[in-house]
């Protein structure tokens, strides 16, 4: 849930999604679900000469399992909060394991 929770805060921000087939797409994150499927608006590929077939695509739905990286704008990540959230997640996982 941590990643889902985290990605939700990125909604309406511009991100770059790097897929496992090396396609790189930049766009505005519209929504994300628990599988980390991603919906992008105003999507463009970072290198149109490499993936010309994606030029026409403006809105995209990307299956979460094909995403390798998501490049974030650093300014919108609250690291302290993320640390706390991570601690909570770890603690919850530990409590569950018991």
């Amino acid at each position, binding site marked *: *849930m*941590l990643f*889902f*929770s*985290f990605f*939700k*805060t990125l*909604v*309406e921000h511009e991100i770059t999604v790097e897929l496992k087939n090396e396609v790189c797409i930049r766009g505005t994150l519209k929504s994300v679900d628990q599988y980390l499927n991603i919906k992008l608006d105003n999507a463009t590929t970072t290198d149109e000469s490499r993936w010309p077939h994606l030029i026409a695509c403006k809105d995209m739905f990307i299956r979460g399992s094909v995403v390798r990286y998501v490049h974030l704008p650093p300014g*919108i990540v*609250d690291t*302290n*909060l*993320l*640390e*706390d*959230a991570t*601690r*909570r*997640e770890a*603690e*919850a996982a530990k409590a569950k394991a018991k």
Partner: protein
Amino acid sequence: MSFFGFDATLPKDGGHAANAPGFGQTPDAFAGLGGGALDDGDAIDFEETYDGLGDRLDETDDAFNDDTFGSGPATQQAVGRDFDFAGQTSKIADTMHEEQMLYQARQAPPKRQPPIPQASKPARTGYESYHNPEYIPQLEARADIWGLKPKQNDAPLRQPEPVAPAPAAPVAARKMMSLDEVEAMMRSHTMQESFAPGPAQPFQLPAMQQQQELAYNQPQYPGTPPQYAPQILQRPQQQAHPGARQTQQHQQQQPQVHVELPGHSVQAQPSHAPTILQRPRSNQSDPHSQPRQAAQQQANQRPSSQPRQILQNPNRLSGHGQPIAQQGQRGPLPGHNRGPSFPGMVITHPEQLLHLSEEERVAFLEEDAKRAKRNHKIAMLSKDNGLMTPQDKNFITRIQLQQLMAATGNLEDQGSEAALAEDFYFQVFSQIRGAPRQTPHQPANQFAQTYLFQNNGRFGQGRRQGRGGDNHMQRMEQQVQRAVEAAKAKPKSKQLVIEGSLGKISFSNSKTPRPLLNIKRGDTGDKPQTKPHKSSIADRKEALRNIEKVYIILMHLEDHERALPPPINENSDPEEIQRHMEWRSKVEALHKKLWEGIKIMEPINPHASSPHPFIAMLSHGKGKKAIPRIFRHIDDQERLTVVTMIVVHLDNLAVVSHALASPDEPMSAAMREEVALFSQTVMPPLFGLISESPLSNVVGLVGLVLARTNLHVVARSQIGMSLLTILISRAELLKESTPDINIVDWEHWTEQYNQLFNSVEPVLPLLFPGSVNDTDDMYVWQFLAAMGVGASPEQQQRLVIGVKDRVMETVTVSKVLPPEMASARLANVNLFMRAIGLDVELLG
């Protein structure tokens, strides 16, 4: 009792005619019969009538007379009844009627119910005149059925007077008539009444009624069930509206007429559907209640009687046809019988419609369809009407509202907690940054307050780094400035002297070599201390683990804080107080745990190879970040302990001992970040505490710095210098703001200050971390200003001597800088210059 019996035993018409004026006076007839048997001679002259035939009888052959005729005189009792079928029938008439009523009841149970209340009315209003004790105990319905019988019995009581002078015609009419005769007469009556109601009618009424009743009674036995009902239903009307009798008559006549002439009269029809038509008929009777109008109306209605007849078909279960034909007269039909009547309409349609003209049929069908639709709709809607009382409904509504409240309440309680556990980052982030609300399960206000307070509050976390740092710096700057202002305001007269002595200061340049020696000493002392600080891997892991433990405790504390029960007062119920107590004790426990977690009470071992655990925690970034959060949960005494611990180990802090920069070897980027982080996270809480602490605390802290730390190291680091600035400026402020300050304390402070000044003086030229072009020297100027404010004139001179070169250089450099940067740098310099009563302008 039976007419037939009477006829059979009294063949002579005359005797009856003389004694029985009215048909209802059957007892007279019996009396006559009895009289004939007992004293015949009184009534008739035997001799006159005797024809002598008796003389010719053979008396001897009378032996079997008794066998033939019976021994006694011919009395009703004596005469054999074997042949008296009607009499026999009349005996079981009760049973037959019961059976018929029973049949009716079984056939149409719903229809039976409405008439009963109606029939009960006649019991009070309609039967007074007929009252006979033997009928009182009987059921009302049966009394109605038998209504005709009492009439016969009561007739003598009521009618002898009016009837006696009656014309011969009614008497003659009273004679036994065949069914055909009766019908014919009735028809003629109807015509008469219709066309010439006249005053004769009331006259005719009693006899008429009897005749009708007689004629009416006979077909009863054969079994025309619907005809009983009209009798029941019309009684009240008869009584209630004397004028409506005419109508009654018609109605009573109609059934018979109807047999031969269907559609002859409108009013007849209701009698076949008593229950439902009761209401319409009563309506109908109203216009007729004025006898004057009755005939006219009837005449007027005649043309329309044909369709209406159809509409009022006896088979019909409802009076719906009437409104159609008579809408003009009556207006719309009241709705209360719509439901039950609906099926009946459908059944009877086809045959009724056959008699309709085309337009009428269309109109009717249309109307009927509309009505049926409406009725159906209303029936559907009102299907369950009246099942619940208003109280029931209120009760249900209350329960539903309660459940709703409970549900939403739980949703909020559990929802936020669950959402927090599952979705911590998003929830808190949304709160802090105002991200668009995407879920209704927003964190509770308390949660938001906790976190907002934590992040933006007094010990603002370094999350908003730029702003937090700025805030802290601004406040420190303000404090220094205030100190400077205060100092400037007071020793104005002195300053003039000092101002004049500026030249003198330059004379004492000869003292400058001395600090160089001090610096060398400081450096040599510095090196060996930093070596052991290189902590082993085990130490490092231990420190990190401690930090994590502290964080977990902190989060528990914060979670627990969010679960703060509502504040209690004297009126709170014990359970609430109990909860509050539990909450408090848990806070205490967590607080204790936290205090132990930060290891601050570990004994200080100055000669230990590894640093104090608390200080080790501060060497890590997240350890530094924990400080403001820890400060929130500990009390002032504990905060002072933390500050003391930090001050004592000031030169052991990595950010101090490793952050000694010089123009030749500037700080590494990592160390810069460390220092920045420390000044953003740890310094604000320290500053907050010191800026509120009394002079004794400040004196104590400065004493600790002097006693326990290598001041040369401390004074050359940004953190140490800032801390010293805070302490000195606080002391200066206290001096200015509280004139009646404790002399002892003040002497103590002066002593401390002199000691501090002496220690710092040698490193004055080395205070600046970078070259003149390095702009990040504000804290140095602040420190110098703070020192300058409290300094004696002689100390101020030494101060100026120490940094004179830097001042001149900065002023020179700022001349070639862009105006904004130049003014910023000059402002920094001026901060110090004004502290000692000078101004940069003087140098320009």
